[in-house]
């Protein structure tokens, strides 16, 4: 899927400071995690449409088949539902598949196997079988990806018991979370974001894990909490800079795993700031934003000084055209303005509520 290469290549990210450690791109970090996992454990294997082709799944699977052979790194027929079941069946029998998809949209073809089988088997058979598998996919955005190639499906899957969902925002975490996901004994969805693929970051060598289910504070602040994951955190950090220029100090919480959700880190930050903006790459309705907003009002109510706010996608399919894409997708400014409104809400309690 090379069409958006140009777009992604044109994105500009801050260059990390090489004195802090080794710099890798996001794609390289994922590739390294896969290499380590394949080296580490003979039961790990990688499958997916095109994982062995020259595009190498955005480069993340580059060289893997050459190194680990076609039995452990292989292309699949275009049969998402069956391949998800195959991955689950292999996982139920001692293997650790990593099943990679170009887009989360295609995971929906396998909803039955993922939701009704892989996620439930361990519970249904009273813990006799484990299903250690990773379902990896890269969220699309822009360049006419449109309604059928841009879906962020974490909100759709958030309610599914037995499933874990990981959404890294940095090369460091992309590697460490993927390793944790592969070593986890449950089905874990890892949703990457296409726009992070060229981002560079400090990535330690060798094997390390970022624990699943634990968020991290990316920026401390006293006035408002911006919380989310993946590319939304990229925007959240930019928003924090905009806000800082106005004297508003935003705390930015990167959840890293949205299921299980690190409720503690959210509630703790809320205790400090009293205000919360939930950000997500997906639709706001009934998804990650809604869960965070509800959580804040349920378990953090006493700390709330203003309404909760959410910044994600409107209840509209993704348009394919460039002009409409710019309007459809939230940017840092939109997050900043949501945060600003919360901070100002104190002054005018009858306001935006």
């Amino acid at each position: 899927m090379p069409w958006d290469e140009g777009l992604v290549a044109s994105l500009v990210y801050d260059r990390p400071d090489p004195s802090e450690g080794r710099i890798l791109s996001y794609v390289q970090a994922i590739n390294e995690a896969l290499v380590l996992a394949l080296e580490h454990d003979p039961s790990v294997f990688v499958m997916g449409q095109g994982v062995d082709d020259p595009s190498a799944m955005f480069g993340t699977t580059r060289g893997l088949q050459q190194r680990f052979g076609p039995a452990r790194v292989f292309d699949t027929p275009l049969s998402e539902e069956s391949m998800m079941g195959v991955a689950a069946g292999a996982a139920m029998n001692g293997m650790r598949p990593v099943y990679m998809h170009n887009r989360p949209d295609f995971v929906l073809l396998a909803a039955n196997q993922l939701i009704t089988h892989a996620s439930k088997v361990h519970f249904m058979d009273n813990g006799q079988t484990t299903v250690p598998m990773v379902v990896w996919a890269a969220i699309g955005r822009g360049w006419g990806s449109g309604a059928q190639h841009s879906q962020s499906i974490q909100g759709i899957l958030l309610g599914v018991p037995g499933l874990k969902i990981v959404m890294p925002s940095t090369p460091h975490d992309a590697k460490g979370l993927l390793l944790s996901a592969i070593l986890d004994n449950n089905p874990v969805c890892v949703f990457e974001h296409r726009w992070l693929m060229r981002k560079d970051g400090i990535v330690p060598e060798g094997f390390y894990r970022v624990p699943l289910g634990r968020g991290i504070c990316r920026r401390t602040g006293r006035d408002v909490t911006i919380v989310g994951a993946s590319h939304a955190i990229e925007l959240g950090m930019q928003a924090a800079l905009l806000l800082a220029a106005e004297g508003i100090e935003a705390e930015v919480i990167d959840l890293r795993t949205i299921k299980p959700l690190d409720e503690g880190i959210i509630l703790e930050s809320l205790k400090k700031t009293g205000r919360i903006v939930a950000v997500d790459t997906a639709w706001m309705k009934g998804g990650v934003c809604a869960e965070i907003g509800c959580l804040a009002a349920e378990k953090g109510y006493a700390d709330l000084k203003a309404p909760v706010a959410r910044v994600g996608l409107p209840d509209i399919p993704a348009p394919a055209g460039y002009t409409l894409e710019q309007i459809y997708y939230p940017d840092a400014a939109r997050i900043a303005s949501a945060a600003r409104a919360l901070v100002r809400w104190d002054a005018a309690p009858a306001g935006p509520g």
Partner: protein
Amino acid sequence: MIRYHYTGDGIGGFGRFAAGQPPAFLLGLHRSMLRIRRIEEEIERRYHEDQMKTPIHLVIGQEATSVGCCAALGDTDLLYSSHRTHGTYLAKGGDLKAMLCELHCRANGCAGSRGGSMHLIDKGVGLAGTSAVVGGAVPIATGAALAAWMKQEDRVIVVFLGDATTEEGVTSESLNFAALKRLPIVFFCENNFYSVQSPLETRQPPRELHKWAAAHEMPAVLIDGVNVLAAFEATRTAVARAKAGEGPSFIEARVYRFRAHAGAGDDSRTGYRDEAERQQWERVCPVRLFEAYLVEAGLLNATAIDALEHEIAEEIADAFAYALESPNPTEADLYRHVYAE
């Protein structure tokens, strides 16, 4: 009107397969079928008492396929099946008590009461998994075969599927993948002509299921599913092929269920199928037909059958008593195993 006629050779169909088989083997098959029949009948008889608060899908009439197939499998070979689990579970050697405890929703059921009748499992004997979603087990079994192939285990995977399961796209996908990778798997299709109360003719154009399967590039045979020896022989051939690294096979066995799709009793009188159709197939009841054959062959007589019935009846009575005395799960059980450690 009889839509689906029996087209096999009846009792005449055994001879060709029986030659050279030790009597103990043949008697074992008969015993296994009779035992399943009696267990199913007892479940059915007691179902209205509402102690088994779980859906049931009886295999009465379809015993020959499970028993014949499993006779060709070893303990390390794995079996996956659908919602209609009782036959495969018992034929593969699943523990009767654990099964009945599961049906009675007890903590010591084979799935701790969390699966119910549609999710019987006994990993010790290779009854590795079931799905209540039609077609759900097919790719999972294919994945198990992939694992066996990757780990170079000397193991065959068999998955049972119904005729309607061939309509699920995932089955076509799985056949393709198994053929592509030459996986050690046998797709065992029990064609009982119905999906719940829908006859095959409202779901598929006139075609033969095994020919459709063959188009996925694997040997596919049609067998008389009331003939336990035919099921055994077809499975043995397929297993040998799989173990030789030659890949998957598909077996279509024409069978008939004598009872309703789910629950106790037959429901033919509701009109979706003709009583005469069921009666025709009851005349080739797989258990009685084989019994008659063994009697004719001088391997079995009335006294031996009586003793067998008696022994089976005792086992069943014991197992039910055990299940009814078994403990219920407790709240703490609910929170276990949502995630694996």
